[in-house]
Every structure is written in C-alpha cells, then in structure tokens.
C-alpha cells in the first residue's frame, strides 16, 4: 500500500509532499498507519471553508492497483483525517518544501 499526501496553499503557497510505502514500514508502524486510515473518513469531503490561505490536502491511498483520492481543506477536514495528516507530516524527512 502506498499513501501519498500533498499539502499546498497556505499563505506561503508552496507544496510539500510525503509518501509512505507500507511494505517498508516496521510492523508496528504499519499497524498504526492502518488504524489511522481506518479512523479517517475518506469518503466524506466537506466543502472548503470560508476565508483564505487555508492549506489544501490531497491524499492518495493506493492498494492493489486501486487508488482512492480525497481533497480536503484545513479548517474543514473530514473526521479522523487530522491524526493521519500529522503522522504523515512527521515522517517527512525534513527535506526542502518542494
């Protein structure tokens, strides 16, 4: 399973990406990722919030050739998505934001 997260927008407007291949994860991490994915409601997409400069999140989950895509906006994230975003962001290797 591949999980890709892209964050774009925000005041600065630059894009940051993270990608996790579950095959490369330690068993405990893999189980944790599955729990986070199970808890996130990826089928619901609340409309963008009012205002401006909110982050846009584009999430892709690829399993067995099937890809599920979700777009969500900071301030109006689907239930359970924030912990998944935080976990993926924390795993970003601290490279430049491009």
């Amino acid at each position, binding site marked *: 399973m591949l999980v890709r997260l892209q964050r774009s927008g925000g005041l600065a407007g630059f894009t940051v990406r993270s990608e996790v291949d579950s095959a490369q994860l330690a068993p405990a991490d893999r189980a944790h990722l599955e729990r986070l994915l199970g808890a996130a409601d990826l089928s619901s997409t609340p409309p963008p919030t009012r*205002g401006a400069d909110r982050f846009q999140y584009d999430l892709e989950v690829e399993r067995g050739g099937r890809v599920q895509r979700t777009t969500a906006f900071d301030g109006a994230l689907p239930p359970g998505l924030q912990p998944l975003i935080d976990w993926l962001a924390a795993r970003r290797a601290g490279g430049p934001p491009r």
Partner: protein
Amino acid sequence: MARCVGACFIVPPFVLERVIRDGTPEQREWALATLLDDHSIRAQRIHNALVLRDRGRARQPLSPAPGGHPKRTIYDAHQQQDAEASDVVRREGQPAVGDKAVNQAYDGLGSTYQFYWDVFHRNSIDDQGLPLDGVVHYGDHYDNAFWNGARMVFGDGDGYTLLQTTAAIDVIGHELTHGVTEHTANLTYLGQSGALNESVSDVFGSMVKQFALGQTSEQADWLIGEGIVGPALHGKALRSMAAPGTAFEGDPQPAEMRHYVHTVSDNGGVHINSGIPNHAFYLVARELGGRSWDHAGPVWYDTLRDPGLRSNATFHDFAQVTVRAAQHRFGSGPVSNAVRDAWNQVGVTVP
C-alpha cells in the same frame, strides 16, 4: 513626465463622494459644488455617489459610525488549532504586553486600519467599523497565517520554512485585506479569480508596509513576507512583486501570462499565478513613481469596489476594470496609459 494626477485634487474625489453620501445638507452642497467644479470628474461618478447615498438612506436610517479608530482584540490560542480562541490578551487601547507576537499583531492590524482610513477613508474591513480580531500562537509550530472569514489568525511558524508570522506587517495587511475583498469584489478563491484575490492581498499588504515606512515605489522592496522565511527556503521572502519567481529557491511564481501555471493544487494555483497581477501592479507603481498609494493604489481600490467586477473575474476582466477605473479617477492620460501598458507587459492584453 507631465501629469495631473493626485495633485489636481485638494480633497480627493472619493472623500467628496463620501461627504455627498454621508454628510449634512450643507456639507453635501459644498462637496457637490467642489466635484462639479473639477472638470476631471465625470457626472457618472457623482451619479454613483448619489445613488449610493439614497440606497444607503433607504436601507439604514442611521449614519455609520464616524470611524478613524480601530477596535482591536488579540486572542491567544495557546498553540491549539483553535481560531475561536477566547483568551483575550490585549484589547484596544491597552498598553503593550510581554508577548512580542501579541504586540506585533496589535500594531500590524492598527497600521493596516490606519492605511485604509487615511488613504481611502475606509472604516475597517466592512467600511462600517468592523472590530478587528486577531489570533496569535495558533497551532503547534504552525507554518501559516490565514483569514477564516471573521478573524486574522497567525501561527508561530515551524522555524524551518516559516518563522513567527506576525513579524511581517505586509502579511498582517495581506490577511486583513482578504476581509476587505470578501466585503467588496468577493473574488472566488479558485483559479484566476482566486489568484486575483491573492494578488489584491499582496498589493495592499505591500502598500501597508510602504505607507508605514513612508517609502516611495523606488525605495520599496516589493517583497511579501520579508523577515518571516526560515532557513530551509533559502530566500529573502515568500514572494517578489518586482521579480516574481525569485523570492526563494524554487519559487514557482510566473510574472507573465505565457508562464501561467495550470494546476489543481492550491485552489488552482492562487498563490502561484498571483505573480502575474502582482507584477502588473508593481509596473504601474514604478512607471508612475512616487508613492504607490497616490495613483496605482486608488485605481486598484476602485476596481475592487466596482460593481462591474464579477466574483469570477478573469485577469482580463480585472485588467479592463482597472483601465476604466484609472480613466474615471484620473482621466485619460499617464495613469490609465501606465495601467494599460503594465497589463500588456505581463501578457494580459487590454485595448
């Protein structure tokens, strides 16, 4: 360059129009006479002022608050992602506190209010004296600042890409201007209209900084977010209006229409393609010289309030209204020519 721009008016026409709208019968008569006396003001504008005045009268019998003073409240979110934070740390008129971010937000919102009041006689975000609510310390190492439709919200930055976001006065002006846009042209935050919304925030944010520093167009740095970029960006700012695409390593902003970026990220590249209208404004201000808020600024402000500017405006729509606005305010001449030339230079063709 011989031009009869702002210096033609002892009292700017928009102030006169406001007097016509809101003044006593005596003040109104004086303002009308002054306006009619000035051949460069068209009957159209007087007509508009009168229509607005009567519309305002019919809708609200009470005249709006006199204005001239902000009503600021700064809240502390204590590192929580809570834009509705209720912990008030500084109210209007209270002295500085020990927290630098609080004071920067308070001062920056004050400078932005003052800019809109002194230059455009605009009384806050809604021109009705809306209180200014700022939230600081939003989120944990949160590398963003935003307008949530009611409040201006500032993160402390991650220290890596972005530093404390209240440290840049133009960023505070940028966020407050999102509120002004929402209450005027209400440009849809998607694609070209979204990039115009972003650009308007950069344009007025930059003018807020120039106004506070008393800088001319030549002296200004035309940067957005100078002083809040972290070491990972390898740059001097978030955006450059003078040279879009050069603010930091990998800055994706185009300066011209032929490099327009088509993307589904960032609401359709609103922070990317804003480089094009940003550069157009810069070119106008530099061509005319002097203070950006004397000629270029009023043209952009009139455009934002023009009823002919639709929420889903394209760059081309916006450009056309700026040329018309320049002609209305300053007559056909150096200002409207500079506006038209600037758009043509960035590849937005206006006849």
